[in-house]
């Protein structure tokens, strides 16, 4: 395996998490946008999933904040900034090309802010994020390093799906995907997951009933799976 420091491995993990958080947030907000067309106050449902108090005067303010406000830690813009912050110090690992997709995403999001039709302006972001992952696949030659970023990605996706009460069968598929990535972690690396936390998740994801009733436990166990601290500059 190539030589890579602890800080870079942590950053790879968080790059995966924040890129996925950006992507899933964007998709969830897009769905919310659609539903709000007929019933504008439905956005409170989204806030409830994350236990956020509704301080927004209307759906427009909610959307603006959750899409573009870099100071709102639950916004797409915030997640993208954090993804970029992690990515920029990983250029030689992920490549200039992969990093350029994050810059493009930032520019596209910024442009959409002033667009009269944000949904239409945000559409290219899906292509850009897929491009980013394609570029990651293409440029990270080392399987072990690539797997770190994918573990971050799948943990984040599962976490958000559970919080947003996605249907069991969809979350279950993401769980299987996470297991596959975990199995790729070599036994002799310290980058090992917490087996106790994994057993708890396994139990919850075993049945639809547990999945629907033990959301908080599932989220908490996912959080304990890795003791990877987020790196801030």
């Amino acid at each position: 395996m190539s030589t890579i420091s602890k800080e870079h491995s942590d950053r790879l993990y968080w790059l995966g998490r924040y890129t996925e958080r950006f992507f899933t947030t964007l998709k969830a907000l897009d769905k919310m946008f659609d539903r709000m067309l007929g019933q504008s106050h439905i956005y409170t449902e989204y806030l409830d999933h994350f236990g956020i108090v509704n301080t927004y005067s209307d759906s427009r303010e909610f959307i603006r904040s959750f899409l573009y406000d870099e100071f709102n830690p639950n916004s797409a813009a915030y997640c993208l900034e954090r993804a970029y912050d992690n990515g920029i110090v990983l250029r030689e690992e992920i490549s200039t090309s992969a990093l350029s997709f994050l810059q493009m995403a930032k520019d596209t999001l910024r442009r959409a802010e002033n667009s009269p039709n944000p949904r239409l302006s945000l559409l290219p972001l899906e292509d850009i994020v897929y491009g980013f992952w394609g570029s990651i696949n293409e440029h990270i030659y080392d399987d072990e390093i690539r797997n770190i970023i994918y573990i971050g990605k799948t943990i984040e996706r599962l976490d958000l799906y559970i919080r947003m009460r996605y249907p069991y069968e969809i979350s279950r598929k993401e769980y299987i995907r996470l297991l596959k990535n975990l199995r790729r972690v070599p036994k002799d690396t310290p980058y090992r997951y917490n087996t106790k936390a994994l057993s708890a998740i396994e139990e919850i994801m075993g049945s639809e009933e547990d999945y629907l009733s033990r959301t908080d436990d599932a989220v908490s166990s996912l959080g304990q799976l890795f003791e990877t601290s987020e790196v801030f500059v």
Partner: protein
Amino acid sequence: MKDLEQKHFTKAVGNANEINELLRRFGVKFGIYKNGVFNEQFFPFDPIPRVITAEDFACIEKGLVQRVDALNEFLFDIYHDKKIVRDGIIPEDFIYISKGYLAECEGITPKNRIYSHISGIDLVQGKDGVWYILEDNLRIPSGASYPLIARELTRIAAPQAFEENEIVDNRGYAQLLKETMEYANCGGIRAILTPGRYNAAYFEHSYLAEHTGSVLVQNDELFVEDNMLYHRTYSGGKTRIGVLYRRIADEYLDPLTFLPESLIGIPNLMEAYRSGNVGIINAPGNGVADDKGIYYFVPKMIKYYLGEEPILRNAPTYLPFYKEDMKYVMDNLEKLVIKDVAEAGGYGVVFGSDLTKEKLEEFRKTIIAEPRRFIAQEVIDFLDLPILDNGETVMRKADLRAFVLSGETTRVWASGLTRFSRNPDSFVVNSSQGGGFKDTWVLK
């Protein structure tokens, strides 16, 4: 020469927006601290290249190789026998008072006796077509990555410009750098040491690491054990580093040798280096050779070490240290440019013509009190280059930073960073002062 740029640039200009869009996409940024706040901004790029004819470049190349070879000889001499001082060519004041002279480097001979592996030599072209050396940068000269990526992207955005002109391909810089690093390698992997993301040139550090296949590291990932430098891996292992291209200043490199308060250095690095177990690019202590005061003596060094006449000229320079030069400086202060030898990056440069009568008198006293601190130069009326400003072509002052790489042989990169002033009244082109950059085309 203006005509040369006009003749060749037209095709590139038509695609200025596309080129800038690509530079944005690829994050070609430059960090600036203003009032203590870090701002990362896109480095303004002008699509009109500087064009150098093959004939001109051949002369520049020869002159730069000669100059850098002499400077490397000088560095070896200064940290060993100091023959050039004993023979009276350079007064010893200029060596020992220089902030760049590091007594801790005495007696160290880097692998293959190369001290300055990557030299950034700043030149300007006078209106008469003559090239002058403005300064030598032998510590951590930055800037090569910008024309490198700009060329790559301009070839995408404006391919016609390259179909119609025969230009020497500059995209081999990373390979040149890799070979240079390997030549200094004492056994192990290649690493580039960065102070971190909030360094002005972080883009360059990471871009060069990516393109030379080096590991980009910060100090806390490194340690010295048994006089060897290692990279601490995430799995708890260690990988030996054979050559370290450091992008931090000498005084911060090793807190046990230099500034003890340095938080970005590696304890005992200098011992590993002194033992010949790791190559450092560029060698610590090089500052003694690119000191603005020493600049005056470089033509003399060329004669002394190589027995040759200098091919490239220095800008006419006066040292107030010498009586006759002091007299000239005092008599002509209002038309000279005065440089504080301790400053860099465009700071500490004062044009006599910009000063009021009172300020001029005040400055005169400072020079008399501290003659070693300043050099004075004639203001070279250097060539203006065309730049695109809101769709209009305007003329601005520009210099050229040429990159000379010393490995098995000394080679000049057939390109360089052309920096220009965006202010019509300014001669200061430094990016830290808000200047922009151009690609530099060398014609075949």
